């Protein structure tokens, strides 16, 4: 996908990556999607509080730049595997929020026809092979998808998202090792939000940076500020290029923070209010991105307001769509366990 950099001629080349590489329309679309992720999750949280959605959910509010930065350089038919904290990945990869809400409401119009819910949200048509309820469960699956890409010569690249907690699972080690020995077109993206549930990386992980572990698998390990869209996109772009040209995998550590609790049962006893406040007021990914967009003259305040309003409307309509959609028929309980043969 050749992206024209409209600013390239006019602006000095020391502009940050995203502002050299994407045109104004694309950058405004990134902002819209970051808002879409945040408002989607706020809407989901609200529906949950009001008892309209059951189960649990893991919100990625505060991590939007990471999802967008990684997915922006991906082609539509590139693939991802995602995590329990996967709403942002799903939207960033191109999902429609109305089908996501429908899934959360357990409706047949949802991405998984009401069988998966938040923790298994997927959009196979757009290359999202699914969130996962098992920490690190998607990492070997991504390597398998990358094996398919290489063998079938599809030219696809696969991104595996996972958290800092997942990097201590055996599956992480096994998967990264195999991806490296077989030089597969896969990018490992560790979204390090500082905690696996209540356990900080300092308490759980022997290395200072998760990217340091890349050395053990002879692949580049890159650390980025996960709250800076342009930094994430720049690292993702390089890693995806590397994967696509057959040079093998990269481990990107995207350092970020989640504002909300781990899930709906979290009492936030393992971190301070001050810590949360600090991230929210000084390092918010959307605030940072808006400031840059304004600085480089890509959008103004009224433009931002228009984006917010459009997103608000899309979310409202999506929730209405979900509410109005039909529930699954109990008679179809047995469906989708095995492949239905015509």
């Amino acid at each position, binding site marked *: 996908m050749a992206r024209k950099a409209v600013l390239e001629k006019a602006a000095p080349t020391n502009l940050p990556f995203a502002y050299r590489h994407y045109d104004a329309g694309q950058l405004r679309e990134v902002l819209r999607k970051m808002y879409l992720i945040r408002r989607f999750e706020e809407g989901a949280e609200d529906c949950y509080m009001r008892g309209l959605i059951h189960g649990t959910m893991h919100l990625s509010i505060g991590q939007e730049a990471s999802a967008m930065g990684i997915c922006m350089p991906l082609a539509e038919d590139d*693939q991802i*595997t995602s995590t329990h904290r996967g709403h942002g990945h799903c939207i960033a990869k191109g999902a429609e929020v109305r089908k996501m809400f429908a899934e959360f409401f357990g409706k047949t119009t*949802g*991405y*998984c*026809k*009401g*069988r*998966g819910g938040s923790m*298994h949200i*997927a959009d*196979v*048509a757009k290359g999202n*092979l*699914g969130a*996962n*309820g*098992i920490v690190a*469960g998607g*990492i*070997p*699956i*991504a*390597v*398998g*998808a*990358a*094996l*398919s*890409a290489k*063998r*079938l010569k*599809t030219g696809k690249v696969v991104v595996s998202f996972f958290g800092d907690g997942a990097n201590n699972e*055996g*599956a992480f*080690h*096994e*998967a990264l*090792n*195999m991806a490296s*020995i077989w030089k597969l077109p896969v990018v490992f993206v560790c979204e390090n939000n500082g905690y696996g549930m209540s356990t900080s990386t300092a308490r759980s992980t022997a290395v200072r940076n998760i990217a340091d572990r890349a050395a053990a698998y002879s692949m580049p390990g890159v650390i980025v500020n996960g709250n800076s869209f342009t930094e994430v996109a720049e690292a993702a772009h390089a890693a995806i290029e590397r994967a696509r040209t057959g040079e093998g995998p990269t481990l990107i550590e995207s350092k970020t923070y989640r504002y909300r609790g781990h899930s709906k049962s979290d009492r936030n006893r393992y971190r301070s209010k001050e810590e949360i406040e600090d991230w929210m007021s000084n390092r918010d990914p959307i605030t940072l991105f808006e400031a840059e967009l304004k600085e480089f003259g890509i959008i103004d305040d009224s433009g931002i307001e228009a984006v917010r309003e459009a997103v608000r409307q899309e979310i409202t309509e999506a929730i209405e769509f979900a509410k109005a959609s039909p529930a699954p028929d109990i008679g179809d309980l047995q*469906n*989708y*366990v*095995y*492949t*239905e*043969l015509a």
Partner: protein
Amino acid sequence: MDAEMRELSYAQAIQEAMAIAMEADERVLLMGEDIGVYGGAFQVTGDLVERFGVDRVMDTPISELGGAGVAVGAAMTGLRPIFEFQFSDFATLALEQIVNQAAKMRFMLGGEVSVPVVMRFPAGSGTGAAAQHSQSLEAWLGHVPGLKVIQPATPYDAKGMLLAAIADPDPVMIFEHKLLYKMKGPVPEGHYTVPIGKADVRREGSDLTVVATSIMVHKSLEAAQALQAEGIDIEVIDLRTVRPMDKRTIIESVKKTSRLLCVYEAVKTLGVGAEVSAMIAESEAFDFLDAPIVRLGGAEIPIPYNPDLERATVPQVPDIVAAARDLVRGAR
């Protein structure tokens, strides 16, 4: 014997099935530990790497969990992997990917994907490999909706059922008894399939139905032969598929013989025999029973190393003869 029938070993039959599938379909590939130049721990893949190359006969690192996961991911995205576990016992390292991922992926995603992966598990005791290399874990996986679990007992079925498994759009787990690998039997050339989910009446009889799995099919046939001299006429059913179970064949047989004996190598309690017994107890065949249902399974212990102890742990022909005789003579 048909013109195109030859005697092949069970291992050769499996190898031939894999070769036929690989020849016919570029997407089929083999993965596993030491399946390349080594030929596999039980020489099932043999020299296939010479024919198909290292890209299609892939040696994996010693990474059961990761390897199984790679196979699942590849199956979801267009390949047809056949993943060999070196020993079925090592399924325990990969249960995450088998039980949580492969089995449920289609369901969780509302039918948007299929997972056409085949996993092969060399199973069972009798090789002196002791407790961690001799188990029969088919009931573990048989408990999981979304998986299909098969136990071919003959070279003919090993080839035909593996070819059916490869063509199947869903994950199929194949438990291959290690002592069967060298057993020879007639196997047709070329492509054919033996359906998954269909039991086979190996021997017709009127006095007692024996439902056996894997190597126990052969032991039960031997027992039936011995009892014929005593005027006891035994029907032997080879279950072949643990999930989905062929209830109809068993029900019809029990209605005819009025007696049921289940014979399997896995630990007796909470296993395949329990399922067959309960299924009959719930069925119309219950009213036809003239005697209690009897299960003959493995002892409630890990498989011991000592060969005498090892043999004593799992049903042997004399055990089957005695149990069958007692059942038919009304000693039960």
